């Protein structure tokens, strides 16, 4: 029965071909360092799921943000777990992305024919940092407020356009309800969409070209 359904679907989706291309492809013998990339992807999925759950209760306005986070953390069943996973997952994302980058660098995996994979990876790193930067403001506690104050000040240091960029980031002179709205919008719409697209390209390239083996001493 199952096989019949499989056949039926295969006629239409050619999924066996896709499955073979992705899962049955052969890869060189690799070590544990090579799990860093997939681990990053795993944490990214963790962030997406917990993030979606958080938005169900989170209110992105200065007068309610803090209270809603308190509610999530203290009242909502397993809210502490969801928020805890998201919070620590954020740091894990940065750590894993950087470690993954170092693995690729030291194993010479950015070289021909994987230059494009590397560049999308660097952009993904920037997006991860953007996630961290925008997500930090959302709880609207002292740390968020002041960390964002300092962070946006750094943007303002840019020559010529600094002041302009600062006002775009903050939505005005000061950190306000507009800043929170912008950061929230960026955090839950713009960055995830970009991330999803780039992860798609990144993975396509990884599967199409294949991962490098561990370089030998004479390589």
């Amino acid at each position, binding site marked *: 029965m199952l096989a019949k359904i499989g056949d039926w679907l295969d006629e239409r989706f050619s999924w066996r071909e896709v499955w073979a291309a*992705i*899962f*049955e492809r*052969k*890869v*060189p*013998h*690799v070590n*544990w360092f090579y799990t860093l990339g*997939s*681990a990053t992807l*795993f*944490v990214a999925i*963790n962030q997406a799921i917990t993030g979606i759950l958080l938005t169900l209760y989170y209110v992105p306005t*200065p*007068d309610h943000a803090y209270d809603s*986070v308190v509610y999530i*953390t203290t009242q909502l069943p397993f809210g*502490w*777990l969801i928020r*805890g*996973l*998201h*919070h*620590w997952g954020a740091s*894990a994302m940065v750590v*894993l992305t950087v470690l993954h980058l*170092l693995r690729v*660098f030291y*194993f*010479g995996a950015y*070289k*021909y*024919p994987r*230059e494009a994979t*590397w*560049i999308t990876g*660097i*952009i993904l790193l*920037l997006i991860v*940092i953007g996630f961290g*930067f925008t997500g930090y403001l959302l709880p*609207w*506690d*002292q*740390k968020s*407020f*002041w*960390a964002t104050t*300092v*962070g946006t000040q*750094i943007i303002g*240091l*840019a020559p010529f356009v600094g002041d302009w960029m600062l006002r775009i980031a903050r939505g005005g002179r*000061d*950190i306000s309800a507009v800043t929170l709205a912008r950061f929230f919008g960026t955090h839950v719409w713009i960055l995830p969409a970009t991330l999803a697209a780039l992860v798609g390209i990144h993975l396509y390239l990884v599967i199409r070209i294949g991962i490098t*083996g561990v*370089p030998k001493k*004479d*390589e």
Partner: protein
Amino acid sequence: MNEQEKKKYLDEYKKEKEKGVPFFPDIIFKDTIAALLIFIILAALAYFVGAPLEARANPADTTYTPRPEWYFLFLFQALKYFPGKLEVIGAMVLPGLLILLLILLPFIDRSPKRHFLNRPFASISAFVVVAGILYLTIASVREAPPPQEAIVVDKAAALYAANCANCHGPSIDVPVGTDLHQVIAAGTHEGMPAWGGDLGTDEIDALAGFILSPNGSAVFTKYCAVCHEQPLVASGNPVELQRVFDEGVNYPSHEGIEAANWAESLTDTELNGLLNFLAAPDGQRLFVINCSGCHGQAVGYNGTEEELTELITKGGQHLDMPAWKGTLSEKDMDALTSYVVDPAQNSGGATLFGQHCASCHGNKVPKAPDKESAIKIISSGGAHITMPVWGDILTVEQLDALVQYTFAASKGGGPAAGANLFAENCSDCHGKSGQGGLNPSRHGDIIAPISSSEYLKTRDDATIRNIISFGQPDFGMSPFGAENGGALDDEQLDAVVAFIRNWESNPPAEAPAANAEVQPETPAAPSPNLTSLTGAQLFTIACARCHGPAGEGDVGPAFNTKEFQSKLDDQALFDMISYSRAGTDMIAWTDKLSKSQIELLIQYIRTLDPNYAASLTYSGRVSAILEANCNTCHNPEKLRGGWDSTSYQSLMTSGDNAPAVIPGNAANSLLARSILGQGSQMPPIGSLSQSDIQVILDWIAAGAPEN
């Protein structure tokens, strides 16, 4: 890499792959284990450490040391090495170059060598960058100031953050002379909401203190908040505060607390800030705390601002009361002293008081224990009450604010000037508190109260001003405006209007309901200048002559019988009072009394019912009043003030300041105080009707029975 090298690599990679393993399950297995491990670590962190959450964001808290999140710390630290104009190099140029370098890396390093030992330059450079970032991060963490020990939160700052900062930003520049408490409690017309409903007096005090003296709030948090967590402010009374600092460890409640010699341990600036926080330099509030005990709502003052400053600063030295013996006639002296002993019973002295005493005493009548001492004090004068030397007690800022307020209030348009003008021109007919009374120019006519919230809510300033200026000839009121031949110029008219308007937020001291509560059984003598007309007083004026002072019956039938009470329902009684009755001397009161006054009368007559007490139950009368007036906000969903008035159980037990009702003790029951307008006026949209207030007061006094 040239084409040959590329081909070579691809060939070798192909061979390597063939010797390799299938992605599924080998690689997936490893990945799953790594993912599982990471998930366990994350879940453990979430469980054992949790996601931290600090205090609510407070843009006003300049003491908070701002730090970015940990993965930006290296950048934050790097900035320290690029001071001034060079900052942009650390903040932008270097990170920008690093990112550019990373992106271009595959095109810069195009050698076919892959093992890291075979490309030492790249490997070492990357190592240096990583080590540098690690070093900067660690250095930044180390340089971080130790976490603040004090867990004590600046509550006033937190209140500010929660309620004000979103619109006002980190601080508010308050113009001198603003009645800050009033603005916070009542809001403004420019979109600021009234906070009086959400915040208690304590909290508004704390907010005003914080806004006017944020440093003082910090000092309070540092030194005082450990013990004085509640209330937010130790005491808003400057005289008491002065004692705290003068007496140090000897101050009664500070005994044995070594640190309590605050006058020594705090710097002058800290002390000043602290005092300004605890009693905010808000003139109106300071006047209420410091002056109104003797001067009432306001003082009429005619000197210059400098003189006033000196007067207040030096205090008692100037307060010699003249000896009135000889100035006042025997008769006037008698009236005045009687009035001072008991203003309620001897209203004849009110005019005299207004003429002779109010300029110093304001509208606060000094209390004399008996007539003899009153005669002695008034006759001989002298400094019988010493005004404190405020210059020693108040800070410069407080003194400034107080003088500004008092001066402004006593001058143009302020209620103080209006009070005197009202006493001179209006109180003869309208009563000292605008409570109305018999109309001297039209026999049998009664002047309705003008100080009731009902009256004031339905007339704007312009209307009241016109009435005063043009008079109401139909009712016997002559024009008072100068342009209509009266005595008051424009400024004075405004002052009187302001004084009258002031009753809306500060109902006259002798609130009608308060009197009614004390003596519902023994109505006051028919003297229109006493209080505004309660049902009891209307009864005395209109009914007692024929029906007996206690409704026991005389020419007319008795009211205090079950027969009478059960025979007539309210509507029948209303008709009875409104229209004359053939064959009796009963007149048609509808000419003399307003509809609401007749209703008041009926309400009062009902209290004469021997069964009245029996009807005073929650299920009997109280629940209906609560339902109509309170339940909209005080229900299980909205729960304003934590109070739920929808059921007997909840109304007796719930509330932030529960219990709202103390059976048998109306004077101290929050519900009674609120509907009487003592503290915060409830319902906020306007007072309950007198009869409803009476029912609730009597109900509480009767032990607040349920059935």
